[in-house]
Every structure is written in C-alpha cells, then in structure tokens.
C-alpha cells in the first residue's frame, strides 16, 4: 500500500508492504513530516529556522530538534572537509540539506517502533528502504535520468540491507547546491550524484557534499567505507565507485 502527500514542497511517499499497512501508520508519518516542515521551512514566516534567521530566536533558545540539526551540520561540515555547510552565500541558515534525510530516517524509526518491517519512506527522491517489497524481494530503486523531463530510469539498484539512497543534482531546481569553498563554482561538470549508504541520513548528507565537490565527489565517496556512489556528468557519462555494482544485480533474492 502506497500513499503520497505533498509536504516540504515535495512528494512524500510511504509504501508499506501488504499485511502491515494501516491508515494510522501513514497518518503518523505524514504528521511527522508536517511537523518538520513547520519547524525547518525557510518558506514559512513563523518557522523556527526563519525566526532564527531573523534573530528573533537566540541560539540558546533553540528547540532540541533544531539544536540537533545544528550539531549534525557542524559534524557534517567536518566530515566533508567543509563541503557541507548550512550557512548560505547570503549568510543565513538553510538546514534543508540535512533535514530531509534526517526526517526520512526519523520517519522510518516511527514505523519500526510500530513493528513495521517492510516499507520505504521517500521524500523528494531520497529513500530509506526497510525489509522487502511486496514480492519479498529487496526494494528496487531506479536512478533518474538527469537529462529527461519524465521519471526515466537509467540505472537500477537493489537495496538488500535497509540502505538509504539519495541523489543530488542541479538538473531540477537549477543550482540549488553550491560549492561552499568557491561560491562562483557553477558545478556544471557533474549533473547528478547518487549515494547509497547505511541509512538515508548518511546517504543524503554525503550525496549533497560530494555533489558540491564536482568531479572529485565520486572519489570522496570511493574513500568512504560503507558508501557507494554513481555520478553522471553533463555529457551523460556515469562513473561509479568500485562496490557500486554489488547493488545492481538482485543477488540477495534468495535470502529474502
């Protein structure tokens, strides 16, 4: 059973394999995303992040969730050698690069807490897989063609061990990711960077950071154990990390 709601300006999709699906589970997950949106949306005048940017809330007065995001941002900045930063070129905070993966991960934890084992939660193309799909196989995720308007698939991966998968790119929103180290870097060489990691929070933050690294991003992912990546340049040439191919065939079917 699959349900979609538009939250955080993007489709949030929850699919729970049959047998486990109940309406109140979907409602609980969507309510959580609405709560996150209300707190972290820079589009909302009354969100906490907007108030922080307007200096209406001091750092000491931040909510626990906000403080956690700020701490995780600081940590991520260090882990990515400064390529991840919630401070935008104009000096305000934009936590969206971290909040999406974090909230998907938390939403997954809500379902796990309810005893649900087979599902995925997706927000705007970033996915946390858990257990197996309807057919009892690992969740099969397509990497979107960055050159086409439709949701065309150019690569398929299977996620057998509850991985998260996230894609960063410049092809949909224009340049919504910038290189914090060189604000004039247009990041045109690489148009799409997909990262598979141990969970969506990790996959998402490293996808964002490695995309900001341009051509070097795939080598950064190559150096991270437990992560695989697939980058696509503007000429349509994909480069993958050495372990990526382990995800491209459905070897794990027999363990389902």
């Amino acid at each position, binding site marked *: 059973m699959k349900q979609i709601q538009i939250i955080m300006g*993007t489709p949030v999709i929850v699919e729970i394999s049959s047998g486990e699906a109940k309406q109140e589970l979907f409602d609980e997950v969507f309510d959580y995303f609405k709560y996150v949106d209300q707190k972290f949306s820079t589009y909302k005048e009354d969100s906490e992040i907007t108030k922080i940017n307007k200096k209406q809330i001091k750092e000491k007065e931040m909510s626990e969730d906000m403080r956690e995001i700020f701490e995780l941002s600081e940590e991520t900045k260090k882990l990515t050698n400064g390529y991840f930063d919630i401070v935008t070129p104009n000096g305000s905070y934009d936590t969206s690069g971290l909040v999406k993966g974090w909230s998907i991960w938390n939403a997954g934890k809500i379902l796990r807490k309810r005893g649900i084992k087979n599902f995925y939660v997706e927000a705007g193309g970033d996915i946390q897989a858990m257990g197996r799909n309807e057919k009892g196989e690992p969740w099969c995720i397509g990497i979107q063609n960055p050159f086409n308007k439709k949701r065309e698939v150019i690569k398929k991966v299977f996620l057998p061990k509850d991985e998260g998968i996230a894609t960063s790119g410049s092809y949909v929103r224009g340049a919504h990711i910038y290189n914090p180290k060189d604000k004039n870097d247009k990041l045109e060489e690489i148009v799409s960077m997909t990262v598979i990691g141990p969970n969506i929070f990790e996959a998402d933050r490293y996808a964002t950071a490695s995309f900001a690294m341009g051509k070097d991003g*795939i080598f950064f992912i190559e150096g991270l154990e437990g992560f695989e990546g697939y980058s696509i340049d503007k000429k349509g040439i994909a480069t993958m990390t050495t372990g990526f191919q382990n995800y491209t065939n459905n070897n794990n079917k027999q363990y389902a």
Partner: protein
Amino acid sequence: MKKALLSSSLIFVFIAYVLHVRILGAEAPAFLAPQSSKTSVALSLPQYNTNTQTASPKPKPTTASPSPARPPTQNNSAPSTPVPPPPVVDIGKYKNGSYTGTAVDAYYGNVQVKAVIAGGKITDVQFLDYPQDRQNSVRINSYAMPRLTSEAISIQDSNVDTVSGASFTSAAFRESLSSALSQAMI
C-alpha cells in the same frame, strides 16, 4: 540510614551521567531523562569506517543517530502570514482520475504536472513538461578516471519500486500541482 541512601543515590546518578555521556556523546544535556528511549527506538546502524588508503585528511564518520520523533507540539506561537505563501497542498477528499495542472514558467522552461487520484488519494505525480537546460546528446567521452568504472548512461525499463532523483521542490512544481489538485477537489 537516610544519609547512606542519599549518597548512594548520588553515586548512582553520577555513574548514570558518565555512562550517558559516553554512550550518547556530550552534546545532550544529561538531565534530560527521556534520552533512554533514544537507544530503544534507534534502529541498529551498520558500522562503517573511512578507508585508510585514500589521501587527504581523514574524516571520521560517526554513526549519527537522530533522536526519535517528537510530536508536533512545539512552535505554535504567533501565526503570521507566510510570505511568499507556500502552497500547502493538503491531502483532502479527491475525486478519482487524472488531473493536469497548468504549465508554470520555471527558471528555464515550463513545469507541468499531472496528479493521479485513486481511492481519494494521490497515487502518482507525473511530469508532463519540464525544463531542460542540458543537451540531450549523449556521446562517449574518452577521459577515464583511475580505478573507477565509467559508462554511458542508457534508458532502462521503469520496472522499479520507486525512483531516486534530485528533488523538485520548485515553486513552479508546487503551483502546477496545486492547480491539478484543485480540479480534483470534491
């Protein structure tokens, strides 16, 4: 007796504090008692380390475990009118069918979406039009990166559970979708 009880409980609290700080890291104030639920809720995260063979200063990934979800109780203060108004598309009662939104001028082209409603809910959102700022021609490039495999991308069948791609949280997307869903409203 009372004294002994008091001091032993103080010692216990101190030990609990030390353990807490060691397990969760020092960032969380120890006096926040409900922290214990953090571990019971958290999923088991696979451990991973950085590859030590690569160059450059090693980042040391820690297995971050975001705290469990909290109910949406906070931040209900002083509602003011959002500017620009975010077109919040709430799930309501929709009529089944397919609804095409208006084509909205985006940054470098038009965005137009179609919403598919089944059982009163949104079951799919499809792009009918979409800005294309990249050349479509795919040609083999001769540069090869050391060690890593490269390939020219090619279209596969769409027999997948879902698709990973860069998010489309553009204002144009919201606007086209809102207009599609307004037609679906009962």
